[in-house]
């Protein structure tokens, strides 16, 4: 991959990742407003907005960040499994996406039932949504920190690859 294309892909990946943090923060704001606000149109609207943000912003952004990150890792010397920080980012992003997909049902329930049946019908769902959003925000922040700090550590696979490459260079 040429340097220009690599930088373009990196820009895209960073933009998508940071945007997903902002989108999750917006979801958290909506979920918190609904959790602590008095029942009314604003609270019902907050859950409807949270549902829209989830389906149209958060889900596409997280998927796109995961895909662009994977492509970038495979197309550059970093690799996907050679460095622990890359592997950690992959695992954490995949776990975040899995938890998000598992929460979609609850978000849909909140969005559709809040106005139809009232907040009492949601049980502990409002607290669960706010907690999951907080957790997602924390995990995405850790992923960002890993990208910046790139803590050292080669996996066994990465170490073997490095040895092979240095052995080839000597010849």
């Amino acid at each position: 991959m040429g340097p220009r294309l690599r930088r373009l892909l990196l820009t895209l990946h960073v933009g998508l990742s940071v945007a997903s943090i902002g989108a999750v923060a917006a979801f958290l704001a909506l979920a918190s407003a609904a959790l602590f606000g008095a029942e009314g149109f604003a609270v019902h609207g907050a859950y409807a907005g949270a549902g829209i943000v989830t389906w149209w912003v958060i889900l596409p952004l997280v998927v796109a960040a995961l895909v662009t990150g994977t492509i970038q890792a495979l197309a550059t010397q970093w690799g996907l499994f050679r460095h622990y920080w890359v592997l950690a980012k992959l695992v954490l992003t995949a776990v975040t996406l899995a938890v998000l997909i598992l929460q979609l049902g609850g978000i849909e329930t909140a969005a559709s039932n809040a106005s139809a049946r009232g907040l009492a019908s949601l049980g502990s769902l409002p607290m669960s949504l706010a907690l999951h959003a907080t957790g997602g925000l924390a995990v995405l922040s850790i992923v960002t920190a890993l990208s910046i700090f790139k803590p050292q550590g080669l996996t066994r696979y990465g170490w073997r690859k490095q040895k092979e490459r240095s052995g080839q260079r000597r010849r």
Partner: protein
Amino acid sequence: MKDRHGYPATPRWVILGGLALALLVGAAALMTSGGGHGPGRHFQSGSSEASFKDGDS
């Protein structure tokens, strides 16, 4: 520190991070498990509470 093949030891941050993740996943699994009788009953979503109230469990 290296093992006998020369591979450097797994970094401490990886071990600690992996443990933290395993603990979180375990705690989440415990909190959401148990059906209608375990500790998960206090943390189920509104839709599953509705089905529990309907006597589906």
